[in-house]
């Protein structure tokens, strides 16, 4: 499966949010930890709703979490 063009800074944001764990983030946004891992690794492109929920969890704008890289 090829990597997606969507980049994210979830790992970095988790670190600056008091070293929030993947499990904690997953509980806040209402998904499984496996989904957070898949998003972080770039193996899964979240829905717009989930992307907004993740941005809200870190209290930042969505473009500070996700960016699109055109090849």
């Amino acid at each position, binding site marked *: 499966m090829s990597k997606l063009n969507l980049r994210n800074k979830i790992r970095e944001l988790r670190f600056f949010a008091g070293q929030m764990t993947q499990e904690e983030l997953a509980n806040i946004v*209402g998904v499984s930890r*496996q989904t957070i891992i898949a998003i972080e690794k770039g193996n899964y492109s979240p829905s717009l709703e989930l992307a907004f929920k993740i941005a809200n969890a870190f209290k930042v704008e969505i473009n500070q979490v996700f960016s699109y890289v055109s090849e």
Partner: protein
Amino acid sequence: MSQHQKENLVSLISTLTASTFYIIYVFNRYFASEFTSGEELKYWASAILLIIPIRIAIQIIVYIGFKITEGIFANGKIVDEVKDERDNLIELKGDRFSTNIFVFGFIFAMIGIVFFESSLSAMFAIILVSGYFGELFGIFAKIYFYKKGI
């Protein structure tokens, strides 16, 4: 390994055991019997109809067994994972894969009837086998998507 990945593996095991044995049984019984044309149609129809309750029953038994085993190994501390959008997407993609294989088998069976004048039994056998492989590859696809991403 996530809860849903484990469930897919359990589903794979139950499909492999239940459906494989059932299909072998159906074919063995078919080759051991002599049918009139009306009986043959009834035999295949009942074979296809019976696979549904048999599979449901075996899947329930295997799933209960899986939960009990999981509970024993986790000392009763099982946390049920939420089923989120990724799980739903993987399930849909796996099911689509499964349906495509079945439809391909169905069309192949119809082509056999129309162009090669194949027998009624051959048509039902192809439908039964394509359903089996469709389900099997659908589960494989789900396991693959969980592992490699979508």
